[in-house]
């Protein structure tokens, strides 16, 4: 057995081991990087004076009781609310409670379109939304309008501008 033959066998052995190692490495490569971990939320920004009353926001649901989305928030300047995955319209009940215990209720209606958003099969499915209109009924919300219609995983967007009247 000469040196050249030994060299050839060694080189082929290295190639074979590289093949096995490389395939193991490639098949083991898996990374999960989900950017949408905190859900998709619509961001509301309060305009004008800070709200003095305590604010509670609930989702109005068909054939079900309301469920609380925001509980007893004070000195509200901005807040974020989840949106329905597939509904065309979300109805929200805004309950204002003054320091003397007087309660007033406004209703906000948000219309939108919904889009499936995919990041990876490993990540939880999420929906992004495009706001089409927003209206309010009641006495405490004096103004509400869309600022940025795209509700997605960018938490810095100001989606809805809202102004309250302090009695």
């Amino acid at each position: 057995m000469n040196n050249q033959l030994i060299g050839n066998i060694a080189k082929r052995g290295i190639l074979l081991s590289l093949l096995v190692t490389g395939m193991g490495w490639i098949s083991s490569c898996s990374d999960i990087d989900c950017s949408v971990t905190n859900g998709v939320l619509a961001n509301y920004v309060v305009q004008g004076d800070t709200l003095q009353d305590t604010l509670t926001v609930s989702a109005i649901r068909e054939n079900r009781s309301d469920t609380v989305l925001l509980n007893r928030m004070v000195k509200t300047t901005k807040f974020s609310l989840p949106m329905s995955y597939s509904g065309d319209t979300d109805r929200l009940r805004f309950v204002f409670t003054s320091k003397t215990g007087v309660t007033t209720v406004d209703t906000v209606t948000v219309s939108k379109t919904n889009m499936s958003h995919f990041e990876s099969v490993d990540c939880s499915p999420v929906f992004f939304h495009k706001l089409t209109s927003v209206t309010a009924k009641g006495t405490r919300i004096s103004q509400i309008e869309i600022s940025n219609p795209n509700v997605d995983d960018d938490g810095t967007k100001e989606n809805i501008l809202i102004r309250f009247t302090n009695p």
Partner: protein
Amino acid sequence: MSTMMVRKRTSLSASLILSLLSLLPVSAVHAQHRPSAPERKEDAVGFFRGMAVGTDAVGPVMRSLASYGQYEALLRINIKDRYFPVVEAGAGQADKTDETTGTGFKTSAPYFRIGCDFNMLKDKHDAYRFLVGGRVGYSSFQYDIYSPGIADPIWGTQAAYGAVGSKGSQLWAEVAGGVDAKIWGPIHMGWTVRYKFRLSHKTGEIGEPWYVPGYGRGGSSRLGATFNILFEI
């Protein structure tokens, strides 16, 4: 004993001197005929040294193990044993459903790459080659994302999720390095390790594809590897 050692040293020194002396005339001759500029050997090999057809073994293994992969063939031209223009074409497939999320991704589409390798070895005619080069790849494809549906935890409804037939395309570049060895007769085998980076891409409204045929798992850059089995003629 000491006489013998002295004799041995004397004979060793003599042979050393004789060896040096024997080298001297040769050096002198070389010195006399040394040209003013270093003499360059003419490369006697022709321009076209042959071609090779082959396939990648990693892609099909990945397809069976990792639910995505590709079937690929390549054509490589040998120019002066130094330059190796190459065309690679194949079909990439992915069919993956995550057990936890229930979300699935499916695609199947052709792709191609074109590029050139350079044999970096000093002895370029050796049976072993160390190749460094680059590729540009492109694929136009459709992909499906499906799900059994998602329960909305707040509003209590069931939401349909997914998209069928989303259109995507991607242009990318690869920097490749690898080895190529003559195994037996015309049979060659070799590895390439590749750094791939996206140059441009278009995706469907739902989001970026989980897998791009010929490129691999999504993302702006990634590492890849091939193990090529070639028939060189």
